[in-house]
C-alpha cells in the first residue's frame, strides 16, 4: 500500500515516474482520439490497424540490422509500425469499397493476415540474430521495464499532438459522425475526414506500442469514450471526459503496477480503465443500468396504478397481482380489494382525466396533442386551466363525473 501511495506521488523511482507520465499522456491521447472512432461506429477498425503494426515492427528491425544498425531504435520501429498500420488500413477500406465484403469481414481478414505475417517475421528474427535478441515480442503486450526518458518524450509529444488535432477537428468530425450525407452536402470531404480520424488512431496505436502493446491498445481507444458516453449527452463533453478517464486509468494503472514487482503495466492500465467503465455502466445517472431499472420500475408502478384506478372507477374486479400490490401499498384499496375513501376519489380523478383526454383528442385533432396521450400523462400538465375548463363544459362539468366515478 505504501508502495502504491509512493507511486501515485511519482515517488517510486525514476523508471516508475517515467512510466506514469507516459501512461497518463497515452491514456489522454487514446481517450480523446478514440472518441470519434466510437461516435463514427468504427471501433473495430482500430483493432485491424493495431494488429497491422506487427509486420512493420519486424520489417523495420530487419532493415535496420541489414543497414548495419542495432535494430532497436524505438523511432525506427515506430516508423515501421506506422507504415504497415497504414497499409492495413488501406487494405480494410479497399476491401470494403471495392468488393462485396462488409467491413467486419474485411477487418477479420486484414487483422489475422497481418498479425500472422508479423508473428512469422518475429520468429525469423529470433533465429536470425539470437545474439542480439531485440525483445520485439514486448510490442505485443507492452513492456515498461526499460523505458527511457526519450521514450517518455516521444509518447508525451505524440500524445499531445494527437489530442490537439482531435480538438481542432472536432466540429467537422462530429458532423461526419452524426450525418455523413449532410456533411457531404455542405462540402465536407468525408473520406478525408475519415482518413484523418484513422490517422489519429494510428498515431495513438504507434505511441502506445511501448506501454500497452498492440493487442490491448484498442481497449484504451474504445473504453474511455464508451464509458464517457454514460455521463453526458453532448459529444463535446464525451471528448474531455474520455480524455480524463483514459488519463486517470494510465496514471492509476501504472502506479498499481509499480507497487508490486510482477504486475505488467499495460494490462493493469486496461483493467483500471475497464473498472471505470463498469462503474459508469452501473451508476451513471441517466444512462446507467441502475438508473434505467429504477426508471422502468417507477414507470411500471404508474401504469399499474392508473390501470387499477380506471378499473376501480368502472367497478371492475382487479386480477393483476402487481396492480393489487401497488394500490394497497398506497392505501387506495383494502386487503379485500375494495376501494378506500382516498382510492375512490383517486379513481374518480383518473376517470375524469381519461374523459377529458377523449374530448381533447377530438377538439384538437389537427395538433400534436392526440400524439401526447399515453394513458399516464395528466391532462392538466399539457393544457392550460382555461382549455380544461372548455373541455369540462363540453363534458357537462366535473361534478357530474365525480359522482359517476365514485358510484
Amino acid at each position: 500500500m505504501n508502495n502504491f501511495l509512493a507511486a501515485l506521488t511519482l515517488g517510486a523511482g525514476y523508471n516508475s515516474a517515467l512510466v506514469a507520465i507516459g501512461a497518463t499522456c497515452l491514456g489522454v491521447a487514446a481517450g480523446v482520439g478514440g472518441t470519434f472512432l466510437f461516435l463514427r461506429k468504427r471501433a473495430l477498425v482500430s483493432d485491424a490497424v493495431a494488429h497491422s503494426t506487427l509486420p512493420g515492427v519486424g520489417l523495420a528491425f530487419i532493415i535496420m540490422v541489414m543497414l548495419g544498425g542495432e535494430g532497436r531504435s524505438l523511432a525506427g520501429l515506430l516508423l515501421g509500425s506506422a507504415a504497415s498500420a497504414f497499409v492495413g488500413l488501406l487494405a480494410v477500406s479497399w476491401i470494403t469499397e471495392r468488393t462485396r465484403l462488409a467491413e467486419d469481414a474485411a477487418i477479420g481478414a486484414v487483422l489475422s493476415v497481418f498479425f500472422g505475417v508479423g508473428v512469422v517475421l518475429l520468429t525469423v528474427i529470433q533465429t536470425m540474430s539470437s545474439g542480439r535478441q531485440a525483445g520485439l515480442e514486448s510490442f505485443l503486450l507492452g513492456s515498461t521495464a526499460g523505458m527511457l526518458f526519450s521514450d517518455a518524450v516521444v509518447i508525451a509529444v505524440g500524445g499531445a499532438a494527437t489530442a490537439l488535432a482531435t480538438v481542432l477537428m472536432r466540429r467537422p468530425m462530429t458532423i461526419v459522425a452524426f450525418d455523413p450525407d449532410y456533411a457531404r452536402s455542405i462540402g465536407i470531404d468525408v473520406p478525408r475526414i475519415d482518413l484523418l480520424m484513422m490517422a489519429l488512431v494510428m498515431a495513438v496505436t504507434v505511441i502506445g506500442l511501448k506501454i500497452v502493446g498492440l493487442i490491448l491498445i484498442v481497449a484504451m481507444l474504445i473504453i474511455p469514450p464508451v464509458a464517457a458516453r454514460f455521463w453526458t449527452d453532448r459529444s463535446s463533453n464525451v471528448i474531455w471526459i474520455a480524455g480524463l478517464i483514459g488519463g486517470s486509468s494510465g496514471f492509476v494503472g501504472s502506479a498499481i503496477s509499480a507497487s508490486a514487482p510482477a504486475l505488467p503495466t499495460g494490462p493493469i492500465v486496461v483493467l483500471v480503465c475497464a473498472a471505470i467503465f463498469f462503474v459508469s455502466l452501473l451508476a451513471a445517472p441517466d444512462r446507467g443500468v441502475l438508473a434505467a431499472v429504477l426508471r422502468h420500475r417507477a414507470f411500471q408502478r404508474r401504469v399499474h396504478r392508473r390501470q387499477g384506478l380506471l378499473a376501480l372507477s368502472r367497478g371492475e374486479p382487479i386480477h393483476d397481482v402487481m396492480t393489487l400490490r401497488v394500490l394497497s401499498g398506497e392505501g387506495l384499496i383494502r386487503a379485500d380489494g375494495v376501494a378506500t375513501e382516498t382510492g375512490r376519489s383517486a379513481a374518480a380523478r383518473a376517470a375524469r382525466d381519461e374523459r377529458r383526454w377523449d374530448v381533447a383528442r377530438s377538439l384538437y385533432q389537427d395538433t400534436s396533442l392526440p400524439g401526447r396521450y399515453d394513458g399516464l400523462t395528466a391532462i392538466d400538465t399539457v393544457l392550460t386551466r382555461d382549455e380544461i375548463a372548455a373541455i369540462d363544459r363540453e363534458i357537462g362539468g366535473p361534478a357530474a363525473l365525480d359522482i359517476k366515478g365514485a358510484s
Partner: protein
Amino acid sequence: MAKTMPRVQLAAAGGEAVREDLSASPLAVRGLTVSYGNKPAVFSIDATFRAEAMTAIIGPNGAGKSTLLKAALGIVPRLSGRVTVFGEALDKARGRIAYVPQRASVDWDFPTRVVDVVIMGMQRELGLLRLVRPAHRKRAFECLERVGMVDFADRQIGQLSGGQQQRVFLARALAQNADIYLLDEPFAGVDAATEKAIIDVLKALKADGRSVVCVHHDLATVADYFDDAFFINVRKIAEGRIASIFNAETLQATYGGRLASTHIDQLRLA
C-alpha cells in the same frame, strides 16, 4: 472526307447547345446518371428547377427520387452528367444550397442537443478555428423559433418525436441561410401539426425569394403545396407547372399500372 464534315459541325453545334445559360435556375442537372452496381438508379436526367418556386419530385418507390437529390448534391457519385447551381459548378455554390435528409438516415441516440444540431448548419462560416459565439446561438434559436422548436433547444435529440426530428433538420438547413432548399421526404411519417409547420416555413422561404425542391410521396397534397412538379421513374417522365402536367396521363406514365384509377379520380388534378 467531304461527307463527314457536316457531321463534325453538327456535333460542335450540339456542344454549344449543352452550354446553355442556366444561371436563372437555382439547380439544373444535365444528362445525370447514377448507378448502384450495374443498374442505373436514375438514367440520363435533365432537370431545370425554377427559381422562387416550390417543386415536388414525384415517382414510385425505387424511382430514384432521393438518388436524384443526393447526386445533385454530390453525396452519391455521378456516373455521368453535370450539375449547376445558378449556372455555377456545385463546388463553387455550396453555400447557396441546403439539404434536409430523411430523418431515418441518422442515429438519433447520437450525443448531441437540438441547438448543437442547428449550429452544425453554420459550419461553413465557422470553419475549424472560430468559436461558437452568442450571436451564432441566437441565430440558432431564431431558426428553431421558425419551426416551433425553440422550447426543445436544450433537449437531447433522442427525446424527440419523429415530427420534431424533422423540424430540427429543417432548422439546421435554415441556419445555412441558403437560396435553394432540397428536402428528402420532409412529410414522411410526421404528425399533422409538423406537416403544417413545415409547409408554412417552406412557403415563407418561397415568399422570401428562395427556391424549394421536395421529394414528395403524398399525391393528395401535391396541388395544394407545390407550384411545379418533376415526375421521375428512373428516367424523367415530365416536368413543369402543376397546372399543366399534374394529370392522369402523367401519373399513369410515372406509376405504370400501379396507381388505381379510383385513386387518380380522387386527386385534385390539373
